[in-house]
């Protein structure tokens, strides 16, 4: 199959468009979930959507996307509200409330799923695909539904941008300004539910949580503003959606949903590693630079003090003999701050001695002055 025939393929077009919509909505709303410390809310909602999927199927009598989406949104939203109520009104911590909601709703979902499979309804085929997603089954009408939900959610987010931002950053302050904080929080949770519902067909209930969290986590690494973060998250979502869909065409039996998640995870790993300012690599480099700067000052200082005391017999006894120090000494020599010579008479044949050059002395004087330590002699 050449690239042109793949691009012209009707199913492929559906999958790519669906994946793009999924990426946009889950990236944008996932940013708010992650910043509010509710990364796992998406996990609870998506697992809790399974009984809704089954109920939607039972009510409609067939695999009707509309009724399945409504069912999923209802039970997913119910689980989210139950979770909030449990944390507010009982002594349960958030993680415990989340865990119990997730497993109870998912268990009900699995029971309903096996019940439907037992009824031998001819049109039940592919309902279990909602567990891990089945992108290839996406119809053009499904794509329009996903697009419509995405559009509505983004419109609400754009209209209430500053409220969503302030409630996420400082809910108490928002309340003192007279903002309806609870309403905004419920609205944000509802929209995260919508994002989950959009992804059920493609990614499935089990992996959907990653689609909420991963683009947002990656985007946080690259952006300094909430607006930038939301846009980058949406972009990361789209890229992982499309690359997952494309990768799955490379071979037989490659599932689209998990490939989308793996693409998103790859972007997360790269972002965590190399993002400027926040990446691990950046942090390692900064630590190394700080250590080098401190070590340089320490060596120059010690040699300068030894020199001031005019203690020729003890040229560099206070420097540690570790490999790190040796490396630092050679580096300083290359910078022209030190010279080395061998003094076989004093310390045996292998002892290399170090001495400050004139420019090394000048630097050492500056260091001594900034430390404000009284000089000897």
């Amino acid at each position: 199959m050449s690239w042109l025939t793949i691009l012209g393929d009707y199913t492929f077009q559906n999958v790519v468009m669906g994946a793009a919509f999924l990426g946009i909505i889950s990236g944008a709303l996932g940013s708010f979930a992650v910043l509010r410390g509710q990364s796992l809310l998406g996990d609870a909602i998506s697992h809790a959507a399974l009984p809704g999927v089954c109920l939607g199927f039972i009510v409609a009598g067939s695999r009707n996307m509309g009724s399945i989406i409504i069912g999923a949104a209802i039970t997913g939203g119910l689980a989210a509200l139950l979770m909030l109520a449990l944390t507010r009104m009982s002594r349960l911590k958030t993680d415990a409330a989340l865990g119990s909601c997730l497993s109870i709703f998912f268990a009900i979902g699995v029971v309903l799923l096996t019940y439907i499979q037992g009824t031998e309804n001819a049109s039940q085929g592919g309902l279990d695909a909602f567990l891990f997603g089945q992108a290839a089954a996406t119809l053009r009408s499904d794509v329009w539904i996903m697009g419509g939900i995405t559009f509505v959610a983004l419109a609400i987010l754009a209209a209430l941008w500053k409220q969503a931002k302030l409630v996420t950053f400082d809910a108490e302050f928002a309340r003192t300004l007279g903002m309806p904080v609870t309403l905004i929080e419920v609205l944000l949770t509802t929209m995260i539910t919508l994002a989950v519902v959009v992804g059920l067909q493609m990614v499935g209930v089990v992996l959907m949580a990653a689609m909420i969290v991963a683009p947002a986590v990656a985007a946080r690494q690259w952006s300094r503003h909430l607006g930038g973060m939301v846009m980058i998250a949406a972009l990361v979502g789209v890229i992982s959606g499309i690359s997952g869909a494309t990768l799955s065409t490379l071979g037989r039996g490659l599932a689209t949903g998990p490939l989308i998640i793996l693409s998103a995870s790859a972007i997360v790993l790269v972002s965590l590693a190399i993002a400027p300012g926040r990446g691990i690599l950046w942090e390692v480099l900064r630590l190394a630079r700080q250590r080098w700067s401190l070590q340089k000052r320490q060596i120059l200082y010690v040699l300068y003090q030894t020199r001031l005391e005019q203690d020729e017999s003890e040229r560099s006894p206070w420097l540690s003999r570790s490999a790190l120090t040796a490396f630092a000494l050679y580096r300083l020599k290359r910078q022209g701050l030190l010279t080395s010579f061998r003094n076989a008479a004093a310390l045996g044949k292998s002892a290399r001695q170090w001495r400050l050059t004139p420019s090394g002395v000048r630097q050492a004087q500056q260091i001594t002055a900034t430390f404000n330590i009284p000089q000897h002699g």
Partner: protein
Amino acid sequence: MDTNAAVKVKHLTVSYHNKPVLWDVNVDIPAGVMAGIVGPNGAGKSTLIKSLLGLVPPLSGSVSFHGQTYKAQRKRIGYVPQRSSVDWDFPTTVLDVVMMGLYGRLGWIKRPGRKERHESLEALDMVGMHDFAGRQISQLSGGQQQRVFLARALVQQADIYFLDEPMAGVDATTERAIIDILCRLRDAGKTLIVVHHDLQTVQSYFDWLLMLNVQVIGAGPVNEIFTGENLKRAYGGQIALLNEDNVLNTNNAPAFTALERAE
């Protein structure tokens, strides 16, 4: 008389489960004072502010601001929460946080524009943070964070300001700068209500004091309230009076030096 009280609290009781955090608090804070609220840990200082602002529901009692309800006066009330109450790794800039103080005025749909930017930059100038306007908030020191929060309250142009431990964990320069700004606001006729934890500076900072330990220990001009006897009643064994002679030899003499042992 009572009519010019900026904040009037009557029989306010707040409880957490079945434990009272505040018990029958009755206080009139006059307008135009710099009022301190002091008391030991767990005395309900922050809870008092939060229940006055409607953030914590009271069990009973009523509160009025210049004789009106909180809802009617909301636009005249500014709030500086504890610095630790937000996530400073949130992706936003200093200027953006300050502009949040104007969101209440902007209504539902309107976005902050040129005018709001200008006002926010002026407020940042007042707290000496003008050059940090474009800085990420995650890069600020504790003192700088506190100044940003103060600037956010300043743009609210309120008449009554509530500040929750604005001096906690900030450097000496920032503490001085904050006190200077608060004094200027007071001199302009505003009322400032400050939760404070450092007893050594109470007398130099405030002109009115509420000493609290679940119940009101004393409320009034600082010289009348900041006495050894009141401190002992509020803090019990937690307090060490450094200069006992100074405190005990005259009636109602202020305790010049006091140290909070527990903290």
